[in-house]
């Protein structure tokens, strides 16, 4: 055991920890959804429950939810903290966020949580130590407003008890930088190195625990280094330190996981560890002059060492409550195209790129535009049906719909003093494609719509057989509506040209559909 105090160790049960882990791939209007934010939060959940000394019930994992759910989770932690303090326990609360943000707030989907609110929320938990790890664009805003500056590293005295109290905030970037995701690591750079650090890569003094300062130093250097060559440019993590007292904070304890993967110093290099069972990179470790240890769950892993033209890959099984030393002989050569880890990450990306699907039912009317056609051929009919629509990240939408309907009317024929009673029944199936405005509570779209139409008209009381048309009608579609959440209410207008000559004359057989739709977005 090193000088660091293992705040979460069982021997120090009087120190209680909680965590609120928030991930949201969706941001406010105009932002492109992220691929890995929610996955990164899951990754942090795994590490903090495995090595961070936080029991499962004490972790609040909030994925893809909005402001209210976050406030509710923090509120639950606040109550638990109050109860623990009443018992005389010391308390630590971690808050992790991965998602969109701007200079004013965290973007939780269409809802927001301002930086000031976040600080206040942390303070109101009443915990002795509050640690916020924010992986978001412009997240440095929160530290800058408090006067925080870039720091290449910092060292705290450590003690055998929790002397410190206050708030520590670490952000993934400065107030004017973007925080980047990487397809190569299957997550954001910041969280990737944060996870690596907490798994053991940051245990520079080999004492078996990873402290807050070790974590920051590791994450800072690795993030800046890895992002320096990106098109977006280097990303600088920042910190805000507002602790009274002395001491460093233990983030994880490597022995707590029970299973370890040992990288011997005899094989120096940088290794990436991919959890085959859970399809994610769990750590990246650099081995130089001494053995390095990563705390991992038992399971199957791929350990990769990257060479310029190929990968060296070892398939390893980490035992339950045991250590496995990485044997150089276990590595075999693999081409980059055969990279199973990349394949798994690509699948995550593909899933994230899938369109947002919505289903809706609608009702309305189908009416021919030409009054002559309406009066003499097809009276307006009621229409009802359903639609499935795919809204792509690019703003494009495609839809498939079907509908049926019927109506009655009386045909007015030139020269006849009476009207012919008529019943019209319709059935159709359509395909639409177009572009929509940005995702927002009020939204509209327009595009092309192709409809296969079947129209039947019969003449009750007349000795005239039913007549029908079946054809494909090209047209335009437009919709606008209110999309407050999963439910939506939409008005749709479709106009089609029906290529059919009636009685050898062009009757202007265009028809319109005006529909009111109620939808559900997944």
């Amino acid at each position: 055991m090193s000088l660091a105090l293992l705040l979460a160790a069982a021997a120090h049960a009087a120190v209680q920890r909680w965590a609120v882990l928030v991930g949201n791939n969706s941001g406010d209007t105009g932002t492109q959804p992220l691929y890995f934010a929610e996955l990164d939060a899951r990754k942090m959940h795994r590490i903090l429950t495995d090595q961070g000394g936080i029991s499962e019930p004490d972790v609040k994992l909030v994925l893809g939810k909005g402001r209210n759910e976050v406030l509710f989770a923090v509120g639950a932690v606040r109550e638990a903290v109050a109860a623990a303090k009443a018992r005389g326990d010391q308390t630590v609360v971690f808050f992790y966020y991965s998602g969109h943000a701007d200079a004013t707030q965290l973007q939780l989907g269409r809802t927001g949580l301002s930086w000031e609110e976040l600080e206040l929320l942390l303070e109101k938990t009443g915990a002795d130590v509050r640690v916020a790890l924010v992986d978001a664009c412009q997240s440095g805003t929160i530290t800058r407003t408090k006067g925080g500056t870039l720091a290449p590293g910092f060292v705290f005295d450590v003690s055998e008890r929790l002397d410190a109290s206050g708030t520590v905030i670490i952000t993934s970037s400065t107030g004017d930088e973007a925080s980047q995701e990487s397809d190569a690591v299957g997550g954001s750079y910041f969280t990737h190195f944060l996870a690596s650090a907490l798994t053991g890569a940051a245990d520079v003094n080999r004492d078996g625990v990873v402290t807050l300062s070790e974590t920051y130093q590791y994450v800072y250097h690795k993030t800046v280094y890895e992002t320096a060559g990106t098109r977006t440019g280097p990303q600088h993590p920042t910190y805000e330190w507002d602790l009274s007292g002395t001491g460093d904070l233990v983030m994880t304890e490597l022995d707590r996981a029970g299973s370890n993967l040992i990288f011997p110093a005899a094989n120096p290099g940088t290794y990436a560890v991919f959890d085959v069972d859970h399809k994610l990179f769990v750590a990246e470790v650099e081995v130089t002059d001494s053995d390095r240890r990563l705390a991992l769950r038992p399971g199957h892993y791929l350990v990769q060492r990257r060479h310029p033209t190929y990968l060296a890959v070892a398939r390893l099984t980490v035992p339950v409550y045991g250590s496995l030393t990485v044997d150089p002989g276990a590595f075999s050569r693999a081409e980059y195209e055969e990279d199973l880890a990349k394949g798994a990450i690509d699948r995550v990306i593909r899933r994230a790129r899938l369109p947002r699907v919505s289903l809706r039912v609608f009702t309305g009317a189908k009416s021919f535009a030409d009054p002559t056609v309406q009066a003499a051929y097809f009276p307006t009919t009621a229409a009802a049906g359903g639609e499935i629509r795919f809204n792509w990240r690019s703003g494009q939408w495609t839809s498939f719909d079907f509908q049926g309907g019927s109506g009655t009317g009386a045909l007015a024929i030139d020269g006849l003093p009476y009207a012919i009673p008529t019943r019209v029944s319709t059935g159709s199936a359509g395909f639409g494609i177009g572009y929509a405005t940005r995702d927002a509570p009020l939204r509209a779209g327009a595009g092309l719509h192709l409809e296969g139409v079947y129209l039947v008209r019969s003449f009750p009381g007349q000795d005239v057989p039913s007549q029908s048309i079946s054809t494909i009608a090209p047209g335009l579609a437009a919709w606008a509506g209110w999309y407050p959440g999963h439910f939506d209410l939409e008005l749709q207008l479709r106009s089609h040209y029906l290529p059919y000559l009636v009685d050898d004359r062009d009757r202007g057989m265009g028809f319109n559909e005006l529909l009111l739709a109620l939808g559900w977005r997944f």
Partner: protein
Amino acid sequence: MMLLALFACGDVSNSVFEEDAAFVAALPTEEHHTMDVPGSGLTAKAELGETPELLAVSISVATDVNSAIFDILGTVDEVRALPPSHRTANSRGWGPYLHDGVDVTATIERSGAGRFDWVFAGERAEEAAPVVWGTHYAGQTVAEGDGEFTWDHAAWGRLWGQDTAGELVVDYDNRDGVDLLVQLAGVRTGGTIPWDASYAYRFVDEAGDFQYLTTYDLPDDGSNDPAAVRVRTRWLPTVGGRSDAVLTGGGLADRTMSWTQCWGVDLTLSYQHDSLGVTEDLGDPASCAWGDFAEVDRL
């Protein structure tokens, strides 16, 4: 669009209903089969500025003839207002439908180049007979054609339980205006004297010509017997008109009297003259729409 049109198929058409309209157009109408002599309900008075007697008589006669034709048109219009109850490519049929206790059926058959034969028949108890029938030849349009129709007044009475007799025949030509030749043969209702008469009516190019035979009791002719009168009334709606009558018999004995009355667009007498001086000469002959005396020439 052409490609899409290839995917279109169907049999939607209103031709069957437009054909209904064509068949119905072969039936007589008020517009084409009644007489429209200018003025109505006028009281005649042989003074300048008053309604001429011959015009008033012409109006009255036309109204009487029209009333007979309206009886026919009433039956026809009843069918015209209903969709056919059965259809074939060259026929339409209605009924039977109940009309004042009589089952009426109507049939229109088309043959040749626009020939329509139609008949309205009634059936009641043991009595079944055609009542009105006709043949119509289509012109430029079906409605603008010519033909004739007959009303069996006796059959009408038998079916509807009335004491009637006689027959009314109308020859018509609607291709260029309205031209009617109406003949009544023994038409009688109840105890009235059988009515035998002929009437010729033409309204073409905004000029009307109505010819008929009637009787008229000339005042101050020394007799209560009416004279036989052949009347020809012509008019131009925007100018005025002229009636020429030839009277024989009655108080005239073996004399023949030619009597002319002219009127203006306001339908008041502008000129009067007769060959025997029975009536007072009035007005200026230059006020007449026509200068010549025209006798009845179609009856």
